[in-house]
């Protein structure tokens, strides 16, 4: 039997942020699916999409949605990896890889929202 390694004094923070981001997503994510539905059904033309996406307050909310989404996804993947993968080296490198991918993805999306490209 290994010796007791003590407590990590961490856990409540990740638990809290997972839920805080969930509350934001609860309000904002339905909007994203609504947009998709409207375009799919042909109700909205491209001009409608552009008009809405380019409104300043929509851009702010859109960015907020993206942040919450990335945080929520990051914490969710972390929990899943911690549950099933037990080799520290694999766990840490995989989390590094996923964090990097999420970051790149987030920057690309922000560029799209604010029209940097």
């Amino acid at each position, binding site marked *: *039997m*290994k010796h*007791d390694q003590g*407590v*990590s*004094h*961490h*856990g*409540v923070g*990740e*638990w*809290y942020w997972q839920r805080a981001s969930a509350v934001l997503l609860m309000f904002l994510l339905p909007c994203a699916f609504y947009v998709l539905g409207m375009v799919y059904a042909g109700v909205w033309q491209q001009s409608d999409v552009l008009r809405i996406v380019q409104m300043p307050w929509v851009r702010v909310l859109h960015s907020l949605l993206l942040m919450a989404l990335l945080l929520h996804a990051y914490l969710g993947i972390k*929990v899943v990896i*911690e*549950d*099933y993968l*037990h080799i520290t080296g694999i766990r840490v490198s995989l989390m590094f890889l996923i964090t990097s991918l999420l970051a790149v993805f987030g920057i690309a999306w922000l560029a799209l929202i604010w029209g940097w490209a």
Partner: protein
Amino acid sequence: MDKMIRLSVFRFDPEAGDKPFMQAFEVPVTKPGMKLLDALNYIKWHIDGTLTYRRSCGEGVCGSDGLNINGVNGLACITEIAGLKQPIHVRPLPSMLVIRDLVVDMDHFFDQYRQIKPWMQTSTPVPEHERLQAPQDRAKLDGQYECILCGCCTTSCPSWWWNGDRFLGPAALLQANRWIVDSRDEATGERFDQLEDAFRLYRCHQIMNCMEACPKQLNPTAAINHIKRSMLKRQS
């Protein structure tokens, strides 16, 4: 009364060096309201004396005969044969090291129970008579203290299956909450400190197998949620 009960029982003999296997048995109905333990006793006393399992009180108080019965954990002594689909699959508690047949090594389980310091800790001087508790404070222990440590909940938990070396499991956490909500205990802060860990406490993902398995109808998931809420309250 001469209808036969069909069982399929997990067997493992460490001395034979064989792999575990399922063995079929047929047992007569010996009495109305017959329990699974009665059937196991019948096998041991009349068919195969080598069948090994734990039992003691036979009425759901000691918590010795926790088993996996048709895929769900429960106590053999209070599980009625009548409600079970046959053949009744009887296996040891899941994700445990098997010593022989249905007997598993409970050391790690009790070690995790010990980790939450399941006794009253105080720093104030001992009163002349006893530490009193108001009836409404005593009521907070209902649904917490009844645990008999049979291990049905902890060994039903997938989070504990995958991370049982670090995650304390529902039984130990239910008891952690039992001492956290006890108005007489004065080590609440240290108890929280000992649980503030992504693995010890936060592996619980509300799977609720523990609640479904508990033979005493307790709810460890709710107790764990209460600890999490109290932990947040302490930090914010």
